[in-house]
């Protein structure tokens, strides 16, 4: 036994060879903002890595509870992070396949008696070996209708979350306040979920950065004036209803590209240069309805 106590483990080495470092770096590089989320993921990764080494050394035997809840407003990157999380857990050896199955209430809950259990089970089977991501999980539970089939899906979920922790990781996602209420009325979920990660809203500067990145990926860029207009747009858009962070930005950019294309077609003699094809002008951004003083609609 003297041997065993002298045995050492190289965490840094494991960090590099397991590919965890790579995923965390990619997370830092490709996702803008979200500092508290990244920190929590880093911590979780460290915990899981230490746990794995402890397991190898015979110090721990139980699979740690890995089920998580992601709370935050729409468009704050919950699905994206869940995808990365699946890869991370796979690299750490906590899920065998590392795929993500993304579902909502409709995929789990049936429409008549006896429909729910097979439906839920089928999805659970598909998610085995990977991560089951339940978006807007609170819709599963409808307190005003006690005969709602959602309850049945919840019971099956809880059972599998408890008994097959080695096979499946469940991530619940949704708005913070409604998730809190959901957990209150379903204490079974609360006790089975170990990691709560809160996704903050993006700041204006971060959203502008995201907008530029999105354009860059499609080989577009802002002119200097258009960039200023976009910053202004973000500030205005935030105060309007149905603001969904990065998703609103993506939609706005789609419409901006529409106006850009239309402008190219309608002005001039139809001859365009490469620069014109890829540069979004100020007018394209300013064409948005958000700039109208009455602020109607959300274009």
């Amino acid at each position, binding site marked *: 036994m003297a041997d065993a106590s002298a045995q050492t483990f190289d965490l840094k080495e494991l960090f590099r060879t397991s590919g965890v470092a790579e995923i965390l770096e990619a997370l830092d590089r490709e996702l803008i903002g979200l500092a508290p989320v990244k920190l929590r993921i880093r911590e979780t990764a460290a915990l899981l890595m230490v746990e794995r080494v402890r397991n190898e050394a015979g110090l721990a035997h139980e699979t740690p509870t890995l089920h998580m809840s992601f709370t935050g407003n729409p468009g704050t990157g919950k699905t994206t992070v869940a995808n990365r999380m699946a890869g991370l857990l796979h690299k750490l050896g906590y899920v*065998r396949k590392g795929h993500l199955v993304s579902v909502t209430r409709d995929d789990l809950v049936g429409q008549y008696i006896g429909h729910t259990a097979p439906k839920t089970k089928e999805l*659970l*089977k598909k998610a*085995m*070996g*990977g991560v089951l991501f339940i978006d807007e999980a609170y819709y599963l539970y409808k307190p005003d209708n006690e005969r709602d089939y959602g309850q049945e899906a919840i019971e099956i979920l809880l059972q599998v979350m408890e008994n097959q922790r080695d*096979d*499946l990781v469940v991530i619940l996602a949704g708005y913070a306040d409604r998730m809190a209420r959901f957990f209150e009325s379903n204490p079974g979920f609360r006790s089975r979920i170990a990691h709560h990660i809160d996704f903050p809203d993006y700041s204006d500067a971060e959203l502008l950065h995201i907008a530029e990145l999105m354009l860059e990926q499609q080989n577009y860029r802002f002119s200097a004036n258009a960039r200023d207009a976009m910053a202004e747009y973000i500030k205005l858009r935030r105060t309007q209803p149905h603001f969904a962070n990065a998703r609103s930005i993506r939609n706005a950019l789609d419409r901006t590209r529409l106006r850009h294309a239309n402008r190219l077609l309608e002005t001039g003699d139809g001859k365009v240069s490469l620069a014109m094809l890829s540069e979004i002008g100020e007018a394209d951004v300013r064409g948005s309805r958000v700039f109208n003083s009455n602020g109607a609609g959300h274009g």
Partner: protein
Amino acid sequence: MRITQGCFSFLPDLGDDQISAQVEYCLQNNWAVGIEFTDDPHPRNTYWEMWGNPMFDLRDAAGVMMELRDCRKAHGNSYIRINAFDSTRGWETVRMSFIANRPKQEPVIEMTRREGNGRTQHYQHAARR
């Protein structure tokens, strides 16, 4: 009498981790996996009862093992087999089939000879408990 049908039936019964490894192999080949059971192991009884639909789009054997556990709970004293279906040719072909559960006491298959016209021999098999 020990029934020998499908793959591995001359080997000792597969354990759960061995079954799981075989299913994993099937899934790697993109075969759909189905579970069937019967209490009548007569060789001419080709169509066994289906335990739910064949499972498509699975990534991991754990899902099949979950169904196998449920099937054993309901039909522990029957034959249960696992079939793997290959769809590369545009229809589902059984590529692999093996018994995953046997009743505690297996029936005996009895053969009887009957003489027909011109002293031809007819053979008939019957499973008897």
